[in-house]
């Protein structure tokens, strides 16, 4: 299937219901956007959009139509061109990128051909964008009120200062910031990540844009916050009639927010249709493959079939505490953590950011010393002999396959580093071991003299795993090892870890925020919340019958692939 636009009748019906069903939308349409009345129109029409980067084509002939008040999802893996498409809509491509063909028509006006000043007048006013990282998208030295004020002033719609302040409060209120009026004078650092993303959305909505483009709006957020933001986007779409374009690598996110869906690969649209149809009966093999690779929460744990944990614990953590900062302003990262890890066992550790997951991982590999409690390795306590064996036998796999590999060294040198550090073998023996390790993680030993940049994300993560395996560890700490990878690559890396556990009898502490992945790979799951383990139990039991309310909350936040959570959609398509 190619970049076909959906049957116009469906979109038309939706827009009509949206406008008619919500008085706010009708009011907005009447006030700001004449023409958005009874016969719903296409606000955004993209035809044959092609974007090139120094000779390579990143987006190749993408086309779609977006009706007023409609929601459209763009899904694809990294390199599929989905973000480039989003940026091209507003012609905000990074240096080197250029729209080489096609048109982006906003209400009949071709944005691709518009001169820059005219385009600037449209950005933010009629088509707005929300970015991935709320931490860096807000200016840290200006108050939130000031930033909203500037956004409102940029298009001169509100000449009066007090009127702008009132509108700013209204916007913060709309996106669900409590005590909106009181918080206008606060700087961005006083808000949490989720709240900042809400403020970003408020900024984007400041001038009643008809189209809101959200590029990975929740990727940097925790699952429970993600759910709130997605609900907010859906609510805004209903209340104000703003058409949404959501770009995400996560099919669950799209399923939750969008009525229609484009699947992109290698810069092309491989399949498009309504979300329900596409998820229910995918036509294109790539869509099917993508859907199959998405980890589902319903899938039972496969760990027991993979390996049987030994009886004696290998690594025991008791009452582990870690505080940062001075005594007066101490921040508690770990507040008495108890854990046991057996040989051949995978213990899944889930928790949101700030729960202390990474602090625990780093304490176990002795990057920092804990403030209290004890860690025992093979029965010997850290600080009384246990730490020496653990330094070699407990190894860490990092989250980010890009920043965790030294860009100046070759893959072979990176993998050989721990061997040199622990004084294992001479030059010839090391070279042999490096080749063996690369083979073991599924890489060609001949690629040892290539630099990390020559490898893909998944291959880089394999190099990271090979490095961790080099000193023959018995415990592998994996800190979010697959969260930076595409779903299809994710599955391969998980398979690799399972195979390594089977072959080498490794104990794995698998830290992640994605419960579906964790259930799939773990024997047991421990839930970390606020520096404490709130629940531990067999993987399947924790997911199916959580005992702690926080675990239940986490489970509820996991975006599912069935599009049911967006209730209005099914009724809309029947209207």
């Amino acid at each position, binding site marked *: 299937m190619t970049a076909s636009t959906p049957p116009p009748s469906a979109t038309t019906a939706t827009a009509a219901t949206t406008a008619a069903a919500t008085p706010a939308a009708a009011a907005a349409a009447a006030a700001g956007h004449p023409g958005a009345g009874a016969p719903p129109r296409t606000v955004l029409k993209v035809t044959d959009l092609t974007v090139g980067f120094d000779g390579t084509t990143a987006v190749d002939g993408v086309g779609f139509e977006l009706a007023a008040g409609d929601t459209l999802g763009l899904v694809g893996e990294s390199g599929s061109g989905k973000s480039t498409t989003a940026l091209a809509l507003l012609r905000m491509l990074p240096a080197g990128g250029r729209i080489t063909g096609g048109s982006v028509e906003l209400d009949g006006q071709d944005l691709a051909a518009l001169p820059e000043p005219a385009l600037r007048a449209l950005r933010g006013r009629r088509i707005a964008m929300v970015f*991935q990282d709320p931490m860096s998208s807000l200016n840290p030295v200006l108050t939130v009120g000031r930033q909203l004020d500037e956004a409102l002033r940029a298009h001169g719609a509100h000449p009066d200062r007090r009127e702008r302040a009132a509108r700013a409060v209204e916007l913060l209120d709309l996106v669900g910031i409590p005590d909106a009026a009181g918080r206008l004078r606060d700087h961005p650092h006083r808000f949490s990540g989720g709240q900042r993303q809400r403020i970003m959305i408020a900024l984007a909505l400041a001038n009643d844009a008809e189209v809101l483009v959200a590029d990975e709006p929740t990727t940097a957020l925790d699952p429970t916050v993600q759910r709130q933001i997605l609900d907010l986007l859906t609510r805004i779409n209903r209340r104000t009639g703003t058409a949404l374009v959501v770009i995400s690598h996560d099919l669950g996110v799209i399923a939750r927010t969008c009525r229609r869906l484009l699947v992109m690969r290698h810069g092309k649209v491989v399949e498009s249709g309504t979300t329900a149809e596409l998820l229910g009966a995918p036509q294109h093999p790539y869509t099917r493959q993508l859907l199959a690779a998405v980890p589902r929460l319903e899938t039972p744990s496969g760990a027991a079939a993979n390996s049987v944990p030994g009886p004696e614990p290998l690594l025991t953590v008791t009452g582990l505490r870690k505080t940062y900062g001075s005594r007066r302003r101490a921040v508690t990262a770990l507040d008495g953590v108890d854990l046991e890890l057996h040989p051949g066992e995978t213990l899944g550790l889930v928790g949101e950011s700030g729960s202390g997951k990474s602090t625990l991982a780093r304490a176990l590999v002795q990057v920092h010393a804990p403030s209290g409690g004890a860690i025992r390795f093979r029965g010997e306590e850290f600080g009384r002999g246990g730490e020496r064996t653990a330094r070699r036998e407990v190894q860490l796999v990092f989250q980010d396959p890009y920043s965790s590999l030294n860009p100046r060294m070759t893959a072979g040198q990176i993998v050989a580093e721990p061997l040199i550090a622990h004084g294992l073998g001479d030059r010839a023996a090391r070279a042999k071991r490096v080749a063996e390790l690369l083979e073991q993680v599924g890489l060609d030993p001949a690629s040892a003299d290539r630099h990390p940049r020559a490898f893909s994300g998944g291959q880089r993560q394999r190099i990271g795993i090979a490095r961790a395996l080099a000193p023959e560890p018995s415990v592998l700490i994996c800190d979010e090892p697959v969260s930076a990878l595409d779903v299809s690559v994710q599955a391969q890396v998980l398979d690799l870890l399972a195979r390594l556990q089977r072959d080498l009898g490794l104990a794995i502490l698998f830290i992640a925020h994605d419960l579906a992945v964790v259930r799939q790979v773990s024997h047991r799951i421990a839930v970390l919340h606020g520096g404490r383990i709130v629940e531990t139990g067999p993987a399947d039991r924790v997911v199916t019958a959580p005992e702690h309310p926080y675990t239940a909350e986490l489970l509820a936040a996991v975006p599912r692939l069935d599009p049911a959570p967006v209730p209005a959609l099914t009724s809309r398509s029947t209207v």
Partner: protein
Amino acid sequence: MTALAAPARALPARARNRYLAGLLTGRGLTGLALVGTVALAGLLAPLLTGQDPDAQGPLALAGPSAAHPFGTDDLGRDLFSRVLHGITTDLALILSAVPVGALAGCSLALLAAGHRWADTAVQRVFDLVLAFPGLILALAVTAVLGPGRWPVFIVIALAEIPLFGRQLRSGILVQREREYALAARVGGASQRRVLLRHVLPNAVDPLIVQAAVALSVGVFIEGAMSFLGLGVRPPEPTLGSILSQSVGYLATRPTFAAAPLAATTALVLGFTLIAEALNRGIRR
């Protein structure tokens, strides 16, 4: 996340020669041409002119002529020969003093990276050197050693130490927090190995740019010191000392100052352009 995938793929070929790519721009080539011309003229001085730069003649303060292309100075010495030999002296001084200063600055920065106390101590040493304005430093050094080549050498090297040191220190601080450095530590590497093998190679980029900046600062310092009579002793020619001599005749014999001024300007401008080109190259 995905937006940059396409350009990233095109990067490797270019990344290897970022310095070269930077230099091969209009800016870089202009800089190279300026520095190259002046340096070549200095190196080929014995071939280009048969005149002894220190030989005095009867013809003082003459304008340009066939025998004396740049004219003569107040003592009747051939300016063409003096400027060419002056360039050699300048370059020899700068090209030896800047690396010494760079090396000392970088060593101190590495030492500082080792321990918190060492860091504080080294930082205060840098502050101390920076606290002295260049000329005061020059005066102090000359007061102890007397005028000559050595004070110029020492002042240039001293002035460069904190610049290189701070640059490298900030690079180390940034790179040390990167995950690959942490990975090396977890892999069992010693602190020294992490620093020298992992952190340092990733922190040197700005230093290359700093070196080009330092060379232009070197030309400037030599000129200023000789101009004030604190530098290389006459009759040995340097660009600064010739300029210093010419100032008295600026109103009556403007051609006197033209050649040394042009050479100094070309060097400073050339090095600055090269620094800027390299900077853009690595930031690309």
